[in-house]
């Protein structure tokens, strides 16, 4: 049976890994290539590289890092950040990415999902969504969580899947960085309407949060986190051993 995936996310700016809390107050950590190799050794099932550079110089540094990572790390790589056109898909796929995650780019031009899916296949297109409760409604935010789009999250996700998104990353802004566990209520609502894999993001603080996630919501396919892995608060080896003890299908290396 397919195992539940554990996915460290590396936010990269100016060639270094960073992670903020609630998207503000960024702190620099380590070399992305070294970190990626280490995660792969410890049993990460996939890696997400997120380009949070704004400048074109920074973009070049990012693709160089991606290339270097793909030369040395042999697990699936997803790339996000700065993806606004199919040419951006092409740029990162050539550097060794397997999947490309779209967020603000798809909000700006929703036809991007369908066009990319047609060119590269649905399995290549990941729709990443930052969602926050506004008046008790799951609402899509753009630009790293700064801008309320007014879009209903469930409608937006349904539309994305119809257009060809092969996977959903659901990042709850409400629980991101809080480390009190994943947003189970929001995830349950998305799993209910999703015919494609759902990756939970935002809120993991300890191993038990992943166990609760996969036990409560068996439809969730993967758990994604950043700082708890970067700071060593959760070791992937320990996490996977605990998943195995709880009979959650997992890949042990």
């Amino acid at each position, binding site marked *: *049976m*397919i*195992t539940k*995936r554990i996915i460290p996310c590396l936010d990269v700016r100016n060639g270094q890994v960073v992670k903020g809390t609630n998207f503000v107050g960024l702190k620099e950590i380590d070399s992305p290539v070294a970190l990626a190799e280490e995660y*792969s050794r410890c049993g990460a*099932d996939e890696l997400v590289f997120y380009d949070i550079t704004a400048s074109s110089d920074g973009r070049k540094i990012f693709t160089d890092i991606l290339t270097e990572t*793909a*030369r*040395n790390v*042999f*697990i*699936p790589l997803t790339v996000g950040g700065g993806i606004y056109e199919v040419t951006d898909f092409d740029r990162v*796929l*050539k*550097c*060794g990415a*397997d999947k490309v995650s779209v967020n603000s780019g798809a909000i700006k031009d929703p036809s991007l999902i369908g066009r990319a899916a047609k060119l590269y*296949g*649905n*399995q290549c297109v990941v729709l990443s969504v930052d969602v926050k409760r506004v008046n008790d409604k799951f609402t899509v935010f753009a630009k790293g969580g700064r801008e309320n789009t007014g879009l209903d999250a469930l409608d937006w996700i349904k539309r994305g899947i119809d257009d060809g998104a*092969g*996977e959903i990353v659901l990042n709850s802004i409400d629980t991101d960085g809080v480390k009190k566990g994943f947003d189970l209520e929001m995830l349950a609502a998305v799993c209910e309407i999703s*015919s*494609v*894999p759902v990756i939970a993001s935002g809120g993991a603080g300890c191993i038990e949060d992943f166990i609760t996630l996969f036990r409560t919501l068996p439809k969730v*396919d993967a758990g994604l986190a950043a700082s708890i892995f970067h700071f060593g608060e959760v070791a992937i080896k320990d996490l996977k051993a605990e998943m195995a003890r709880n009979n959650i299908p997992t*890949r042990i*290396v």
Partner: protein
Amino acid sequence: MTVIVDYGVGNLFSLASSLRKIGEPSLVTSDKTEIEQADRVILPGVGAFADAMKKLADSGLADTLKKVAAKGVPMMGICLGMQLLFDRSFEYGEHQGLGLLKGDVRPIVTDPALKIPHMGWNALSFTRPHSLFRFIKEGDAVYFVHSYHAVDCDESVIARAEYGIPVTAAVASGNVMGCQFHPEKSGDVGLNILRAFVSLKERDL
């Protein structure tokens, strides 16, 4: 020297990188002479069967591959590249494959609660011993992304993966082999399968 056949389908960067990682010299090429002179050949591929087959046929590479296979050169198809080795595929119609392995390629029909494509890490269960597996063990997980798989291929199947139904994971018949999963994306297990492939001797086949 291992030749990776470049026929305009899919991303060969990771595959070439994985061979470099295991110390195997490789060449990504669409040149027929270079393919014919290879010590071994890898046929990659992602996307639609019909498009890929058309590209192989139009470029004349289909004939080159058949010639190379007939000479006994070790050949490995990966993902769609493996499916192309079979007689036929039923992906959007009926299409002829290279016919190097007996069997058809059909949609994965399984428990409706399970998502299609079959995507992620799944364990290999061996159906018979094979030299390709000499550096890995039963139950090791590899990375899959596919919606179709080979059927009616009992003669060549060497490993399956459980996904509501037994999914055809790896096949081999003499010098012609295939992996439905991506060894170049399957961590050390995948590298060890490639390592076994590039060190195959005639007596192993």
